[in-house]
């Protein structure tokens, strides 16, 4: 059942690097991360790769396999032919630290910029009542394991470093949607989604949805509904007027 596979792995650091070829044993039922671990144990003890749960639950092991953003621990070797060369490279959108490990601090910075859950002031703990149907949508978004593969793949930032400042990326636009759809949240993040977090830059290509390992319908269920909410505000003259006035005052 075992065979020797060929892997081409990017090795290097912030100053540069190159692809290195390895021949390594592959066994039945293994995932790419198993093979990388075997490489560490036998040929490349200092090969840097980030991982944690090895069960698709923590979102640590994100990288690009043959150019496609994927979780290393959920990519089975059986999807490749035995003589395929499997190329593993770090996520391209984020700066490399070493080998397959990237600096994902961009995401933590964006997370901080989104106003947090804001419950009604008069609701005591234990008194929260919400119907299952009303929490389903936000629960879908809360399945997110923060692997940042959607952030990695979105073309708005993938090839445009300069856009990072003004674009939160699909994961955090979805976080805004999650809070907006929370049945008890009382804050309003709709204007900020458009003006500060770059919702308008998304042109609904759905690439983010395609790579999400949790199968979250980011574009259809989060981004498009948020765009509709923005549009509704724009065309609602009263809201428009109210906002213009408060903005002038501020």
């Amino acid at each position, binding site marked *: 059942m075992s065979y020797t596979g060929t892997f081409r792995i990017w090795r290097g650091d912030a100053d540069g690097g190159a692809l290195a070829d390895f021949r390594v044993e592959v066994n039945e039922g293994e995932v790419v991360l198993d093979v990388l671990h075997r490489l560490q144990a036998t040929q490349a003890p200092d090969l840097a790769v980030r991982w944690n749960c090895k*069960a698709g639950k923590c979102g640590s092991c994100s990288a690009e396999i043959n150019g496609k953003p994927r979780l290393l621990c959920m990519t089975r070797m059986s999807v490749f032919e035995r003589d395929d060369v499997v190329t593993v490279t770090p996520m391209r959108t984020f700066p490399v*630290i070493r*080998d397959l490990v990237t600096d994902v601090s961009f995401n933590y910075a964006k997370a901080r910029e989104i106003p947090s859950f804001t419950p009604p002031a008069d609701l005591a703990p234990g008194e*929260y009542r*919400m119907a*299952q149907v009303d929490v389903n949508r*936000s629960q879908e978004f809360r399945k997110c394991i*923060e692997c940042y593969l959607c952030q990695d793949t979105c073309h708005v930032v993938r090839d445009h470093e300069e856009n990072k400042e003004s674009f939160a990326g699909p994961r955090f636009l979805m976080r805004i949607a999650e809070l907006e759809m929370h049945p008890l949240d009382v804050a309003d993040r709709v204007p900020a989604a458009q003006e500060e977090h770059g919702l308008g830059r998304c042109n609904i290509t759905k690439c983010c949805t395609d790579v999400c390992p949790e199968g979250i319908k980011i574009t259809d269920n989060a981004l498009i509904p948020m765009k509709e909410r923005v549009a509704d505000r724009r065309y609602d003259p009263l809201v428009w007027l109210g906002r213009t006035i408060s903005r002038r005052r501020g």
Partner: protein
Amino acid sequence: MTEIERHDYDVLVIGAGGAGLRAAIEARERGLRTAIVCKSLFGKAHTVMAEGGCAAAMGNVNENDSWQVHFRDTMRGGKFLNNWRMAELHAKEAPDRVWELETYGALFDRTKDGRISQRHFGGHTYPRLAHVGDRTGLELLRTMQQRIVALQQDDFAETGDYEARLRVFAECTVTELLKDPAVGPDGAIAGALGYWRESGRLVVFSAPAVVLATGGIGKSFQVTSNSWEYTGDGHALALRVGADLVDMEFVQFHPTGMVWPPSVKGILVTEGVRGDGGVLKNSDGKRFMFDYVPDVFKGQYAQTEDEADRWYDDQESNRRTPDLLPRDEVARAINTEVKEGRGSPHGGVYLDIASRMPAEEIKRRLPSMYHQFKELADVDITAEPMEVGPTCHYVMGGIQVDPDTGQSRVPGLFAAGECAGGMHGSNRLGGNSLSDLLVFGRRAGLGAADYVVGLERRPAVQAADVDAAAVLTLAPFDAPAHGGPDDAENPYTLHAELQRMMNDLVGIIRTETEVAEAQRRLGELRARVGHVFVEGHRQYNPGWHLALDLRNMLMVSEAVAASALLRTESRGGHTREDHPGLDPEWRHRVLVTRRARDGADSTDGAESEQVVPRVVVEPAERVPMRADLLALFDLTELEKYYTDAELAEHPGRPADPGRPADPVGGTA
């Protein structure tokens, strides 16, 4: 030595899982400057893996539930070895801690009337586990992560700096705790030394209070549901500075881990599968758990398949299915079935949910299980049974702490979560860990805050200690002092040997000969670990990281083996084939692990003992349970566990020894 990066905080929390985050929230809300240090990225801690739920007697689904029933279930699950004060606080406070999460933004699954839904789990009398599908841990961790962000946003609004009072140091590993010997008779905590995984550079934290929340030890075993983080760091760090561990012989093997393919062996299959109706079957298609109800639980579990099936809908007039016996019982039963030749093709048994409910229902209730089997094993759990077998899952043993404040015997050193001991006795009930993290995480944060506020003088980190800790941390880069380069040990090889040995010799079933053999081999590994040599540089070097973690795994494994050898009985997560029964004389005794003292414990002062200090395990008496708590149990039940002398004070005793005392809150 080059200048080391330094930080100063009031409270240093080591660990960013549920316990650490809850502790940090509490300390920060009390106004203290708080730092969180963790080995992986923020939001990735092991807690994200928890699936089934968080136990709290809210009574949303069955209003007969109460803290008393939860307390009794917890004590029974732990075979009356639990620290009863912890079990009491836990049962009383868990509901408030869960409700509090809703105010942080958590979205649990709902009941029809809009409250938090609760599911069945092994050993819990009523449906008690708050959950979100089968990703409850993720919800808990993300909620608290987001709460921390919210607190940082408050600080930003006030000071212009997100990190003014609460900062997360992610991918930073602590390797040594530092004390100030001049404070108090035995010194007090002064800080910690660690390294950034990213750069390999060292960092020193000065902090009068340290909360350890580092999780478990499962990576010392070959087949485990645990992630790489579970190397027992907190256990070892605490021992090194003089704190005690308790109950280290009790290691929980979860009955249902994946068994195939080999590369995923050990990955957890949530107990929620059984809680929601899944049943265990052997290769004859027989639901074998009916044959394994032990005497102490006789009468509490269904005796026929019909009754067991009716129980899911009507718990008042039926008894629960033995598929939901406490984990130790189920794990041993599976072990026996496999040993006696009634296992599945890959050495497990079958877990069948496919024939029990419609495919859509399975996908809705257990989405991650569906996904996990589909992706990793090519098995469609809505159409065929899963193959499952025991996997090392949780350590009941841990740092001995004061139940109310979380403080260890070392002033300023606190612990909470899986790395703390006592709460779960000899066996943890499913769902009782997530609630433990919340209850005792908060209490440790509070305990640390009060301690710091009450200090007269801040302990100071000693320069010499920092230098010594730095040398020890960087030692794996030095070529071995003795022998040639051929003597250099590879950390990956040593780790694999340790895991195999612990799995085989100190695993689910133990004997005196095997455990003694394990101790001998641990001695060999201890000698070799000093020769570990790693290649490459300090920047994100996994070989070096493992070399350091290995020392902790070794120290903890010695504690487990020494404790397992001493306890000559079988109870919960400790099964001695050569001592198969419960022994009441062991119930009131606790095995305490401490670091060997130079000279006094006749250590030879060898070089390897700096790297991995030796440990000593000794029995001590447990504090007897408070009378009002003891009175919550029927005398007849207690008699199965307690010695006669211990029960002399029980209210049921003098009046009429034959009759059970008045039970509180309904019987199980």
